[in-house]
């Protein structure tokens, strides 16, 4: 087998069918509740975006090949097979119409992890050659260049130089034995250098040693988004090799949603062994510092602000309380959106949707869900902890002419740090 083909795609899906998948399909009662949880359905009213319907080809494959009843039907020739046409038809549902936000999995009354299955079915679609151009490009760049946005080491070094100049703090590159190895997303390197700045200042105040690996500084994992485990594994392996080579205790996943899922949960399962280091999200680390009294802040944001929970952090990652603890430190007027925390609505750009230009229109339509959430509470600032959410939110806000600045939580926190040089000045 070489090159994409439907047979290869089907075989890749076949490999994904395990007991949970079989139980999920056995249990589905077609109640349609998953649609009510999905912003692609609620904002378009198109029933094709019903989450469980997005995995219909996988269900058919399971029924035809892994149930007695389906085998009988296949033998009799009355089973509906999965065809190339299905791949063509479902590609848009599987990639454009799903941000892997996991809201559907959380509301399914029989407990089906539907978004987990969409992640699985993408294995087949990517192998069959039915993945969106945008995601193929991002994945290709990630594998060949090291970053989906094409950011190379010199670019990072240049950014490091800027930050060092601005903060006067040394950014340690490839320091063996550091406690933490910090990963960055390309977007943070290119668009939001304030993140790196914030890290440097917080680490200095907390008195912790840290480093960035020149071999694996990129946190994002396009392999996870396109649903190609073989490629995702390669990207994870780079981080693992670097972390183990430097002997760090903890790898910090940056303000990015899927990067956390990729390295924290999928990573060990992809490389087939537990890591020799811990993986934490930056918010987990910051909250730990807060608990240990390692962060000193002064003053609070006066603006009325809210926090947009990145799906991969709250629903897939379990990082729910940490951002609230941290915001308590630095925000006076923090308000929650309805459906915050584990039930927060996706920005619409996750799961590779934002890398898929073809889906732009749909994504902006879906953004109306977030818009109505924001309209309801009327905030002046929107805080989040995912660079991809941030870009998507900014684009959406611009589209709907909403004047709300979007900021990262880490940098917001850093702005209120009581720093040693200032301490003297009182």
């Amino acid at each position, binding site marked *: 087998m070489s090159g994409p083909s439907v047979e290869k795609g089907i075989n890749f899906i076949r490999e994904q069918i395990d007991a949970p998948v079989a139980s999920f399909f056995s249990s589905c009662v077609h109640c349609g*509740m998953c649609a009510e949880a999905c912003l692609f359905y609620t904002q378009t009213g198109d029933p094709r975006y019903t989450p469980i319907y997005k995995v219909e080809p996988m269900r058919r494959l399971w029924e035809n090949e892994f149930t007695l009843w389906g085998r009988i039907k296949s033998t009799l020739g009355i089973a509906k097979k999965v065809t190339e046409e299905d791949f063509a038809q479902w590609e848009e549902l599987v990639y454009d119409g799903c941000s892997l936000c996991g809201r559907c999995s959380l509301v*399914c*009354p029989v*407990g089906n992890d539907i978004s987990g299955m969409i992640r699985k079915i993408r294995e087949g679609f990517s192998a069959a050659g039915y993945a969106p151009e945008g995601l193929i490009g991002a994945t290709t760049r990630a594998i060949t260049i090291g970053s989906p946005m094409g950011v190379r080491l010199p670019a990072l070094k240049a950014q490091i130089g800027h930050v060092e100049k601005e903060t006067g703090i040394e950014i340690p590159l490839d320091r063996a034995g550091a406690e933490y190895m910090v990963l960055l997303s390309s977007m943070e390197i290119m668009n939001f250098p304030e993140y790196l700045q914030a890290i440097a200042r917080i680490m200095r105040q907390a008195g912790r040693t840290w480093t960035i690996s020149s071999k694996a500084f990129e946190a994002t994992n396009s392999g996870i988004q396109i649903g190609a485990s073989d490629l995702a594994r390669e990207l994870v392996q780079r981080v693992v090799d670097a972390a183990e080579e430097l002997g760090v205790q903890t790898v910090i996943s940056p303000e990015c949603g899927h990067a956390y899922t990729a390295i924290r949960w999928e990573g060990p399962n992809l490389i087939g062994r537990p890591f020799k280091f811990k993986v934490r999200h930056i918010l987990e680390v910051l909250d730990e510092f807060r608990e240990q009294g390692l962060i000193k802040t002064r003053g609070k944001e006066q603006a009325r602000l809210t926090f947009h929970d990145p799906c991969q952090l709250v629903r897939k990652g379990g990082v729910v309380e940490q951002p609230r603890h941290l915001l308590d430190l630095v925000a006076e007027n923090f308000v929650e959106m309805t459906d915050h925390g584990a039930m927060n609505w996706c920005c619409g750009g996750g799961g590779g949707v934002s890398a898929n230009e073809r889906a732009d229109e749909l994504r902006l339509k879906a953004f109306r869900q977030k818009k109505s959430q924001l309209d309801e509470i009327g905030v002046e600032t929107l805080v989040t902890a995912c660079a991809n959410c941030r870009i998507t939110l900014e684009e959406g806000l611009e589209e709907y002419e909403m004047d709300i600045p979007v900021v990262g939580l880490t940098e917001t926190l850093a702005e209120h740090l009581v720093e040693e040089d200032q301490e003297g000045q009182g």
Partner: protein
Amino acid sequence: MTAETLLTWARGSAFDWAIGIFVFGMVLRLIEVLSLGKKPDLAEGRGSGVKGGLKTIVTRSIPRASVFAREPVRITNGYVFHVGFLLVLLFYGPHIEFIENLTGLSWPALPGGIIAGLGMITMASLVLALIFRLRNPVLRHISTVNDYLAWAVTLLPVLTGYLAYSHAVLPYTAMLALHILSIELLLVVAPFTKLTHMFSFALSRWYQGYQAGYRGIES
């Protein structure tokens, strides 16, 4: 064939076949599911998968507020026919006797009038569920013959049971025979339709709950 012999057949060999097919089908399907296996999660865990699995089996019965707010009638209706069906099944005297005969377990019965009322509510709720399925765009889009078949074989026992109880149509003997036969139809059809969820729901909730519990995330 008279109603009497039909009843005797329904209670006798027909039931044996029906329960046999039901047990065979359900056990086979559950083994088919379980035997596919699941890879262990190699990521560093935060909590107990077992606790999460057990918890989710229970908590998933309660809808999320935000989804409930979107579809209050549909969700409530779902409860009504599930609970109504179960109450009628589990608390009518003759049904308890049936269960006791198969399992040795027994408990007090509810008055027949209340059971009849619950049966009527259950039927009304099932009819409403059908209306939703026919009219809601999502339900219409994802529904197959399977869904309508499962609906019909669920309604029939309630309907025939109610008619037998109320002596409204046909002599009781014939209606009782039809009632038992409709249950047998349900038993025979269940393993080949979505009605497998009566058992597999616990497995599905367990799998999602286990992963969530282990990873320390909500489910």
